[in-house]
């Protein structure tokens, strides 16, 4: 059992999300940075889809009522155990009664706390991920607060032997440097003028203060639409299209771009002009408010390659950790 003393500003239980329900308006939810989440799980001997605690900007303070094996990955939040700094991207032993204090993010925006056995909240529609809009999954469908108690599942055999394992430096991302995310331009990008399509990939965008699990609102130049007689059912504004499904990672343009993230609205009537590739969504999720980000246009083959390379990297990491 993990007892939460302080919940931070937006900490939720997440796994790799729920699938199969997008057509009834249910987004996947799940970890915003799947790479950091998965590595945290591997470091404690879990499968990649075990539930972790995702902490945004501010970490949690928590005590453990039993011995445990943990790992913290993702944004650097200077975690301390009983007041002493502990390593990140590293397997750490916790004794019963220990207090873990995860502080504020310096580099990156989101950190992941994995515990051997996984956070064992009940599954809702096949996932433990929290979706706060309708209040399902995770701990009571909401962000963590002081006094919450999170059950821990049964650890895999040998997880205690992993204590002291440190992820080789070549696998640790440097979030401060990652200011370019790759996109595949498309969807209803024909709605933009040629100049606006060009601007989308050349402008420097600033992450707004509202950027959250639903969407990353970006600030920068206005993007103009091709003039047309609006088709039947589309609505009157040039940015309106007949309501359609929004891919996860898609960039919709009410006026300035919003990249839809794991708790996305699943569809609507704004033109979508491209999609952040799956391998780079986690990097965008680590960009702090007021930091800049640029889009680089790639083709679908490069997007698939990047995803495949990430899967291979994760498989390598698993074998490095398991020895």
């Amino acid at each position, binding site marked *: 059992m993990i007892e939460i003393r302080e919940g931070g500003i937006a900490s939720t239980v997440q796994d790799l999300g729920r699938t199969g329900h997008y057509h*009834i308006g249910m987004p996947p939810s799940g970890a915003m940075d799947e790479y950091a989440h998965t590595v945290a799980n591997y470091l404690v001997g879990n499968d990649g889809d075990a539930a972790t605690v995702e902490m945004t900007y501010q970490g949690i303070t928590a005590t453990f009522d039993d011995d445990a094996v943990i790992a913290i990955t993702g944004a650097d939040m200077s975690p301390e155990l009983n007041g002493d700094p502990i390593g990140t991207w590293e397997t750490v032993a916790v004794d019963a009664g220990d207090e873990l204090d995860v502080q504020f993010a310096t580099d990156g925006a989101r950190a992941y706390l994995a515990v051997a056995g996984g956070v064992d909240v009940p599954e809702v529609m096949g996932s433990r991920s929290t979706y706060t809009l309708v209040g399902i999954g995770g701990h009571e469908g909401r962000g963590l607060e002081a006094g919450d108690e999170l059950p821990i599942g049964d650890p895999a055999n040998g997880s205690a032997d992993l204590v002291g394992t440190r992820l080789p430096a070549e696998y640790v991302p440097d979030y401060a440097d990652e200011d370019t995310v790759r996109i595949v331009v498309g969807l209803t990008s024909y709605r933009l003028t040629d100049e606006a399509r060009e601007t989308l990939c050349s402008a420097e965008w600033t992450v707004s203060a509202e950027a959250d699990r639903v969407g990353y609102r970006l600030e920068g130049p206005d993007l103009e639409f091709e003039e047309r007689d609006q088709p039947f*059912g589309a609505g009157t504004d040039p940015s309106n299209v007949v309501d359609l499904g929004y891919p996860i990672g898609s960039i919709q343009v009410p006026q300035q771009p919003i990249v839809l993230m794991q708790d996305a609205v699943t569809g*609507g009537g704004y033109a979508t002009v491209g999609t952040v590739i799956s391998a780079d969504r986690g990097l965008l999720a680590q960009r702090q408010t007021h930091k800049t980000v640029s889009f680089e246009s790639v083709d679908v083959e490069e997007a698939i390659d990047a995803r495949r390379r990430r899967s291979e990297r994760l498989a390598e990491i698993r074998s490095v950790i398991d020895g």
Partner: protein
Amino acid sequence: MANERIKPVDLPEPRYEYGADDHVFVELAEAMSFTANFKAMAITQQVAERDIEGVVENCPANASYMLRIDPEVIHPDDLIAELRELEAELDLEEYEWETRLIDVPVLFQDPWTHETLMEFRDRHQDADSTDLEYSARINGYDSVEAFLDAFVGAPHMVTMVGFVPGLPWCFQMVPRSEQLEVPKYVEPRTDTPSRAVGFGGAFSVIYPVQGAGGYQLYGRTPIEVLDVDQSLPDFGDSMVFPNPGDILNYRRIDRETYDEIREQVEAGTYEYTYERVRFSPEEFFESPHEYNERLTEVIE
């Protein structure tokens, strides 16, 4: 007019688009039409039946559809090739599907949406009338009653579910000449009561939960479209009741009936009135009003 048939629309070549590496988005038409929607419905139903390996989400929308895939299992180009094949083979005239005809009681001009719409008059096209008065006027009806007669006069098909869980977008099952059309609010409201029945563009919606919204507000239904605790009898399999392809028949009720039904919903005993029906696009196009009458008879 009563015998007007619906002419199938000649659709352009579909636009096949990549949503990065893990989505395929197919726009069947830029404009809304039954032809485009039925095609989206038919193709996504066939994708589901074929159980294509690597397809993880299958989402019909108003005039388009979207599939989410695992590109390490199926390459988007291979999927697109299969979708083109399905598209070429599809004969909507022959296609039929099983759906549900669902009774949706609505208290129009209810006190809750009225309070909300009055609060946001400054974000509306017409600050001096209600949403219904405005909608009636711009659609050429001389009274709110006459407009509502048209609104409930034919059922509405769920052409898409989304935005938030359980929100149905519905297109009224009448020829284009009888379609109602209204703009959305000039600036979206920051509040909408849960279970509000709204209308925007050519689509009616039911708001599952309280929140922001931009559709014209007409009334409120006492029944739920989303039940996250799955405690109501019709929500055993899913926390969302309406599905793409369902047909909603809005029914005007008075405050007394509203309260009665609401009491049953809150007691956890309310059961939807619905019947399974076979839907034939061809028969519907041939004689929409007659077809609708036959359809809605099953729940009357």
